[in-house]
């Protein structure tokens, strides 16, 4: 049975999107709502084992902006998207799924993924589980 909450599709792994993902995820859990995240597209490499430790992807044309943002986030003690998501899984029961289609295409298996990822699922499973949840696409 689907439970109301927030479902987020993260389809791009650029640095500013990952910040947004972390903030929206932590806020969802803070509000006591069920969170589901569907990882697809160019966000997938960040959800491979240790993928988050690799260099972030800066959106094209925004090098200066991202440098300023990175420095500003450090000043306001932003925890980092990976840590926020880990908190969401641990404290809020958030579920993180990776797109099965792209995983198949890229020969990625469950064992290759970050331990906080719950499973590889298809769009059908994600949509049914999301039910009447708010859906956000990043």
């Amino acid at each position: 049975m689907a439970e109301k909450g927030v479902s987020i599709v993260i389809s791009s792994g650029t640095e500013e999107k990952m910040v947004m993902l972390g903030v929206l995820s932590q806020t969802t859990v803070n509000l006591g709502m069920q969170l589901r995240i569907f990882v697809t597209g160019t966000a997938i490499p960040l959800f491979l084992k240790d993928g988050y430790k690799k260099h972030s992807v800066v959106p094209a044309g925004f090098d200066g902006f991202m440098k300023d943002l990175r420095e500003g986030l450090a000043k306001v003690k932003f925890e980092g998207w990976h840590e926020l998501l880990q908190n969401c899984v641990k404290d809020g029961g958030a579920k993180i799924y990776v797109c099965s289609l792209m995983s198949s295409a890229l020969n990625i298996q469950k064992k290759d993924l970050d331990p906080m990822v719950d499973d590889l699922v298809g769009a059908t499973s994600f949509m049914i589980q999301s039910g009447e949840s708010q859906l956000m696409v990043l």
Partner: protein
Amino acid sequence: MTTFNVDSRGTACPGPITDLLRAYKKSQNGDTIILLANDPGAVPDTKTWCEMTKNEFAGSKQVEDAFEITVKVASKKA
């Protein structure tokens, strides 16, 4: 009745609410949480959170470079 003092100065969204919730989890009805924050969203976010969770937003005031936000815990289940 316990007063929880939460210093969230220097953190930004969603840090103050995350810190508030950590105190809230330890609290009981009748307790007070005083949140110090300088994120500009802290006051409206706390107000909205109180409305949603049926806790009491008891006010906010500017103290030097921060907001002092007072929440009365009212909706914890026994």
